[in-house]
């Protein structure tokens, strides 16, 4: 049996692949055999690792000459395996983390019955028997002529469910179900249930009233425990020591409850997790760069030149060009006018279904929402004033714009987005410094002046980053890549494996040169032919070949070394290799048949049944 089973596996696998190659209908057999081969090949890595350990541990045990290398091999192998396998030092994958949220495990069956949404209707049955989308399969059911949804529906679930049946009536029903299957209004946007992960999530800090509202939904112990856990997690405090604080530090309104600063102890405390938008808002403490023109430009130049030498001509041009490249009030006006235009919005399925029921034949899928809003003269003047005043704040500008005329929510968003894209004074000065350095020299004092704001900004961003990391509770500790940049495995690969293997390969050049000098001799005709060919190929692989024979006339261009190289490679080399390949192929065919038919059993090793 010890030999019969491997023989059978080999024969069946081999013949399946042969049959699959010649008969298209049996292509699937080949696929299955190949997939099994791939699975076995991955298992072979484990055997290979075991074998490596066995051989080298034996060497270490026997202590022959050079056993120290075996020690190095075993240690390197174990370290690499441990660090890579356990993902030591690899941070969780950011794309799989949920920042700003706390989670507690909760089975779907423990979800409150009071939060199950039911509405009259029938879940469609697909003609091809396709099941419901995977994202809703567990939560959606048919109960006594009603569609029931257990949990709160997420927008992605709504999309999957809508796409399940391409009919307006069904899509309208899904829209209605989505609107109803939501948490109470006081908790909307804060609490959610993820059935795929079996987890209850809460964004931000949970207030006591919110906890009580959640607890009142269900008296089951699992639910009560999950809510209690979320309450604790969302209110956990974390303290980070800051090296310095920005001059005019102001905590954004959205973080007033979550972040507090103790300037005396140089500490900053955060309650609960921070979302990425909260982190960015907290980091944004530095003034944006307003256009610098006229007197202010002269002042800035004077200030820089005062700390060192005057600008060279090239630096002067660079200085002007860099500062001319900043934003203008006209650009901002164009953006805001664009954002004020009436938007084309998709109609809801229920709107289109209502139109269809009313007998409308050509239903338009979109509708126009709102009216075109352009800035009035007073608002335009505010933009100009904002650009000219380096101390003006974007928040004040929004208030002023609203007071001066119509200013839509879309325009507010566009303004915020525009402001976020403007570099800060620190970033602008840093860019200016690099540009000036490319055009000429700057003294250390001049560089320090231009870098000062950026250094302060960088320091604060690091502090906020630390705070963000401290406040985050990873949901999937192991989700990071083992080779994530900066991880120990990455370091080993970049600074040990990569240079060592490259060095090993590069050393070939030295040995080949030495061998060529000592052994590449024209001992007979065959060796002389080989030598001549080697010369042509070696020269033809570089510009030397072109250079040496470029003087040959066009009629003799075939004798140019670069052309001779191509000729040798494509004629002599190809002919020789094809002959060898055909021979090998015939050998493989006969050997494979012997193996598949069990005539050649040498691959099984020695031993009897």
């Amino acid at each position, binding site marked *: 049996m010890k030999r019969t089973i491997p023989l059978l596996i080999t024969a069946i696998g081999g013949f399946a*692949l042969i049959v699959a*190659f010649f008969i298209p209908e049996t*292509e699937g057999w*080949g*696929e299955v055999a*190949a*997939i099994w*081969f*791939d699975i076995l*090949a*991955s298992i*072979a*890595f484990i055997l290979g690792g075991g074998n490596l350990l066995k051989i080298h541990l034996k060497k270490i045990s026997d202590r022959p000459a050079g056993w120290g290398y075996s020690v190095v091999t075993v240690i390197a192998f174990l370290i690499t395996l441990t660090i890579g396998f356990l993902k030591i030092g690899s941070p969780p*994958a950011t*794309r*799989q983390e949920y920042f700003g949220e706390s989670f507690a495990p909760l089975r779907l069956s423990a979800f409150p019955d009071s939060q199950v949404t039911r509405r009259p209707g029938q879940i469609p049955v697909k003609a091809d028997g396709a099941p419901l989308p995977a994202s809703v399969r567990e939560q959606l059911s048919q109960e006594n002529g009603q569609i029931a949804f257990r949990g709160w529906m997420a927008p992605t679930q709504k999309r999957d469910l809508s796409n399940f049946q391409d009919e307006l009536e069904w899509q309208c029903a899904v829209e209605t179900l989505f609107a109803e299957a939501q948490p109470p209004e006081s908790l909307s946007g804060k609490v959610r249930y993820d059935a795929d992960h079996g987890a209850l999530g809460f964004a931000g800090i949970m207030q006591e009233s919110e906890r009580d509202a959640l607890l009142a939904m269900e008296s089951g112990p699992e639910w009560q425990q999950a809510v209690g856990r979320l309450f604790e997690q969302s209110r956990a405090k974390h303290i980070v020591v800051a090296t310095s604080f920005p001059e005019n530090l102001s905590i954004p309104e959205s973080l007033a409850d979550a972040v507090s600063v103790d300037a005396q102890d140089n500490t900053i405390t955060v309650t609960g997790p921070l979302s990425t938008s909260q982190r960015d808002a907290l980091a944004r403490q530095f003034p944006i760069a307003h256009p610098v023109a006229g007197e202010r430009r002269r002042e800035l130049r004077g200030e820089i030149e005062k700390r060192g030498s005057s600008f060279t001509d090239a630096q002067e041009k660079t200085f002007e060009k860099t500062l001319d490249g900043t934003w203008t009030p006209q650009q901002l006006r164009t953006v805001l006018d664009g954002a004020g235009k009436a938007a084309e919005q998709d109609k809801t399925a229920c709107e289109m279904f209502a139109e269809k029921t009313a007998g409308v034949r050509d239903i338009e899928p979109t509708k126009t929402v709102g009216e075109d809003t352009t800035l009035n003269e007073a608002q335009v003047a505010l933009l100009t004033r904002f650009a000219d005043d380096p101390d003006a704040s974007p928040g004040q500008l929004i208030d002023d714009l609203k007071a001066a005329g119509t200013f839509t929510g879309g325009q507010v968003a566009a303004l915020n987005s525009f402001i976020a894209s403007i570099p800060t004074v620190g970033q602008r000065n840093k860019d200016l410094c690099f540009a000036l350095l490319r055009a000429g020299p700057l003294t250390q004092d001049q560089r320090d002046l231009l870098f000062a704001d950026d250094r302060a900004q960088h320091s604060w961003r690091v502090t906020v980053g630390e705070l963000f990391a401290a406040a985050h509770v990873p949901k999937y500790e192991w*989700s990071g*890549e083992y*080779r994530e*940049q900066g991880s120990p495995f990455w370091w080993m*690969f970049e600074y040990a*494996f*990569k*240079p060592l*293997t*490259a060095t*090993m*390969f*590069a050393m070939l*050049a*030295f040995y*080949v*040169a*030495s061998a*060529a*000098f*000592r052994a*590449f*001799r*024209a*001992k007979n005709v065959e060796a002389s032919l080989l*030598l001549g060919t*080697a*010369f042509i190929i*070696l*020269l033809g*692989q*570089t*510009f*030397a070949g*072109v250079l040496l024979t470029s003087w040959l006339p066009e009629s003799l261009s075939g004798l140019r070394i*670069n052309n001779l190289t*191509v000729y040798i*490679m*494509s004629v002599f*080399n*190809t002919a020789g*290799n*094809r002959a060898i*390949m055909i021979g090998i192929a015939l050998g493989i065919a006969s050997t494979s048949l012997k193996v598949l038919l069990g005539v050649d059993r040498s691959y099984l090793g020695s031993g009897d049944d």
Partner: protein
Amino acid sequence: MIDIMYDILKNLDRRWIFLLMFLSVGIPILFQLQFPEKPTGLAKAVFKEIENLDEGDRVLLAWDFEPATEGELGPMATAFALHCCKKKVKMYFLSLLPVGPQMIDETISGIVEKDFPDLVYGQDYVNLGYKSGYEGVIKVIITDLRGLYSTDARGTNIDQIPMCQDVESVQDMDLILSVSGSYPGTKEWVQYAATPYPDKVRIVAGCTGVQSPLLYPYIPEQLPGLLGAIKGAAEYEKLVVKKYGGLEPDPIYQEGIRRMGPQLVAHVLMIVLIVVGNIVYFMQRARGERT
């Protein structure tokens, strides 16, 4: 004088040869020695195959090389990536070697993300990562990609990646770009992907100097274009940079041309060494000494 030279060369310590080789490579690197390149037919064929692609076509980039051969193959991988990004084709990266994913990472972070930030992961490029099984992997994915690749390298379900949703097998690719340094590599892609499906699968490749003679028998029917070693990379780079490099091309896209300088001097040194070695050999024979 001749006798002195003869004695020196006959007993030349190999460490002097090592030193000469070190200098012949080191000095051109130090002085940035560069020479013009004239693209040959094979490099032009590779360039043409990619040029013929339309925006949105699918290209499989099989990065089957490792750090040991990165010196030879890195520049052509970079040039391939640049060309594909400029052509705005959809790029599907994969590797059949265990350390191939790191090579893919380098291309993605060093070229795609750095110089083409508007390209979106999952829509314009995807990293399918490494799968064990050597040519067995090719054998499966040529008819059923999902048979082995149920997720990408990040663990995202392949059905949730927009650019993978309508890809059933490698036969749906418009071109395969294979960069290979060893087994498995271009030879296996030709044998198991291009040869059984000649009407559906087209492949061009870049390989090491050692491998290229073994791939010539497949040219031009099964393998329309081939870049052999750093020379092939330099020729192809010249074509790509000329068309897409702009007035001041980034040096990263001319690495092959840069590496041809040391190669020229090293090759000339090899020829000189062989000639000198043979002179010594014939003098030994003439003097009746044991060779």
